[in-house]
């Protein structure tokens, strides 16, 4: 007997998604969808501080204050200017409340500890140039930061940064202060890109960087070498002269586990690396053990970023490969991979791995525009629910061809009926942001319960030691990371 489906993350009003009123049925409301607690499947997860109990963000404030109490802020003085650098990613967890509270607390603690009155928020983003403006507004951060909260986009004014790779370009508004505080989150998110190499450093090459730098990462260096972009910027004299400390909301697939802060970003990075591989490595490997499924996208994010148990759909598309294993050069989806198919859809070289063949059909019930997503519709049969959503994608300059490769269904039930009929599978997985567990169909729940113990053992005994060794991270850190 299974539990009833978990509540999905709510829809959200945004210029990047359809009007929530048009999302008339969520995947979790389908017959035979059940909720599987993550702790039933994944062993050794650290305790979660949020969500839980009354979902009061006071716990985030308390954890942030405790983490910052150990941080040396002496270089910041009463007359300093300070930019707290944030990213849109953090706002996608639990409506953004915990991340927003961490940002507010950093401001309060810095002001209190240093006397500094000029603490601003600069929130970087991906490809939706107003997304963090929407979060700033939704969480009242502009008022909290006395009118000094800004969304910063990769096409805004740049600033050259001299690095070991030559000149790269940051965003002027990210660095227009005496000091910067790097305020991020530790969920693994785009493992297909960063491969859990310098995860904590990556925003220096992305959220805080100009389009030239981002294009360097995704087009110029190769799928693993690309991660040097962020490191070279972070280690530049310019950034080092401004870097005060980092403060991270630490995450597991089950939720937020705490707050970690350090003036040594690489020390924090090692902890993030270990925790990420240990916890997300298990659930991602478990997803790789799904033999066939219909994936329902049902979350307020673009197609590759909708998530289940903290794992984004892009990683499900790569789950037929161990993306943590650095001996594999090329995951099934990265922007390098996407370039390596010719105009007939054939790989240019045999080393291009296929997109996860276990995904038999994708039902796109609710996902946003603002990320080039045609690759996913080209590689997996896709059914989009509702003409409003199809029209939205047709208008998006990043998705002009998405609907050329997708079918359109009037409603979710019709889409599912077609998917069941054409795939022959009844295994369904929802990428709907449900907290603390997975929403799946009963046949998939049965499969997961059956294979999970073997997967957990394989990760703990074989894979995790290999992943750690590839990154020169001391396994003893595992005991130190909650």
């Amino acid at each position, binding site marked *: 007997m299974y539990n009833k489906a978990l509540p999905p993350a709510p829809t959200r009003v945004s210029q990047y998604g359809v009007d929530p009123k048009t999302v008339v049925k969520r995947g979790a409301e389908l017959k035979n969808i059940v909720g599987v607690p993550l702790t039933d499947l994944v062993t050794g997860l650290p305790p979660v501080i949020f969500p839980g109990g009354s979902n009061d963000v006071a716990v985030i404030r308390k954890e942030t204050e405790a983490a910052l109490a150990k941080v040396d802020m002496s270089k910041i003085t009463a007359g300093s200017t300070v930019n707290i650098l944030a990213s849109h990613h953090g706002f996608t967890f639990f409506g953004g409340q915990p991340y927003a509270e961490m940002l507010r607390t950093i401001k309060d603690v810095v002001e209190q500890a240093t006397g500094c009155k000029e603490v601003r928020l600069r929130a970087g983003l991906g490809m939706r140039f107003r997304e963090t403006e929407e979060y700033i507004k939704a969480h009242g951060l502009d008022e909290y930061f006395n009118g000094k909260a800004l969304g910063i986009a990769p096409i805004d004014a740049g600033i050259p940064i001299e690095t070991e790779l030559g*000149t790269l370009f940051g965003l002027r508004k990210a660095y227009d202060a005496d000091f910067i505080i790097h305020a991020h989150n530790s969920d693994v998110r785009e493992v297909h890109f960063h491969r859990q190499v310098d995860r904590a450093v990556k925003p220096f090459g992305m959220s805080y960087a100009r389009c030239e730098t981002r294009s360097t990462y995704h*087009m110029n*260096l*190769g799928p693993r070498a690309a991660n040097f972009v962020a490191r070279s910027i972070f280690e530049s004299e310019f950034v080092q002269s401004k870097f005060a400390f980092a403060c991270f909301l630490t995450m597991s697939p089950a939720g937020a586990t705490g707050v970690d802060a350090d003036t040594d970003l690489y020390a924090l990075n090692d902890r993030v690396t270990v925790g990420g591989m240990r916890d997300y490595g298990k659930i991602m490997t478990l997803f790789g053990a799904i033999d066939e499924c219909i994936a329902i996208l049902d979350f307020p994010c673009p197609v590759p970023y909708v998530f289940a148990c903290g794992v984004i759909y892009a990683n499900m598309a790569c789950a037929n490969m161990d993306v943590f294993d650095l001996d594999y050069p090329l995951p099934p989806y990265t922007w390098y991979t996407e370039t390596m198919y010719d*105009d007939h859809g054939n790989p240019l070289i045999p080393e291009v791995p296929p997109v996860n063949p276990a995904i038999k059909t994708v039902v796109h019930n609710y996902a946003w525009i603002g990320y080039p997503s045609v690759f996913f519709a080209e590689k997996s049969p896709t059914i989009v629910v509702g003409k409003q959503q199809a029209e939205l994608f047709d208008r998006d300059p990043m*998705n002009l061809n998405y609907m050329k490769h997708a079918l359109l269904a009037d409603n979710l039930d019709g889409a599912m009926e077609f998917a069941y009929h054409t795939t022959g599978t009844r295994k369904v997985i929802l990428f709907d942001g449900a907290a603390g567990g997975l929403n799946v169909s009963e046949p998939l729940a049965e499969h997961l319960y059956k294979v999970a113990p073997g997967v957990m053992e394989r990760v703990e005994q074989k894979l995790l030691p290999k992943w750690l060794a590839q990154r020169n991270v001391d396994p003893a850190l595992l005991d130190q990371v909650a």
Partner: protein
Amino acid sequence: MKTVRVQAQVDMELCQGCKTCQMVCPVYAIEVSRVDGKPQVNIDHDLCVGCWNCEQRCPDHAISMAPCEPFDLATDVSKFDYDEIHALCRKAHFHPKQLVCYCTATRAEEVAAAILDGASDPAEVVRACGVGSGCGIECNQPILRFLEAAGKTFERHKLSYQWYGRTATVWDVSDQVKKEHPGFRFDSDRDLLNSVVEAPIDNTKS
């Protein structure tokens, strides 16, 4: 290739004349001036490629995208000697059939053809084949790599935040960096990208 279906329009009731739209336009289609202290905005619809940058960054929400008579940004690859296209692609370290713009599905061969057809700066390349008129981020460097490979130099437009310059590729990384940071597997990734550049050309040329 891209079919442009919308173009920018400005609501002068809302415009404060801050020039952000002018600064973020990748093809220099917008000019903002002041006449008698009042802002004037000229959007050249012969140039606008419908990328949405201005709409997305205007702090006053004064710009919207309006449907226009659809037109194509495209260069006919078949007009050129394919060996010439292949040679330029190879010099820029691309395979002719490689995708260089995820948003518009523009391939390397078309970018090369656009340059062979006379495009000599980034804005002209964008207008010639649509590359760079979607997200405005990821194909930035391929465009600059192609121009450099073709021997085209250009002055960065002073009244623009665009096209700051070409940055390092894996073919440029120094031996010292490789030696000091072996974990980033520079040579292995360079070999992977080289194998794509050297992959056979399909006979079904587009």
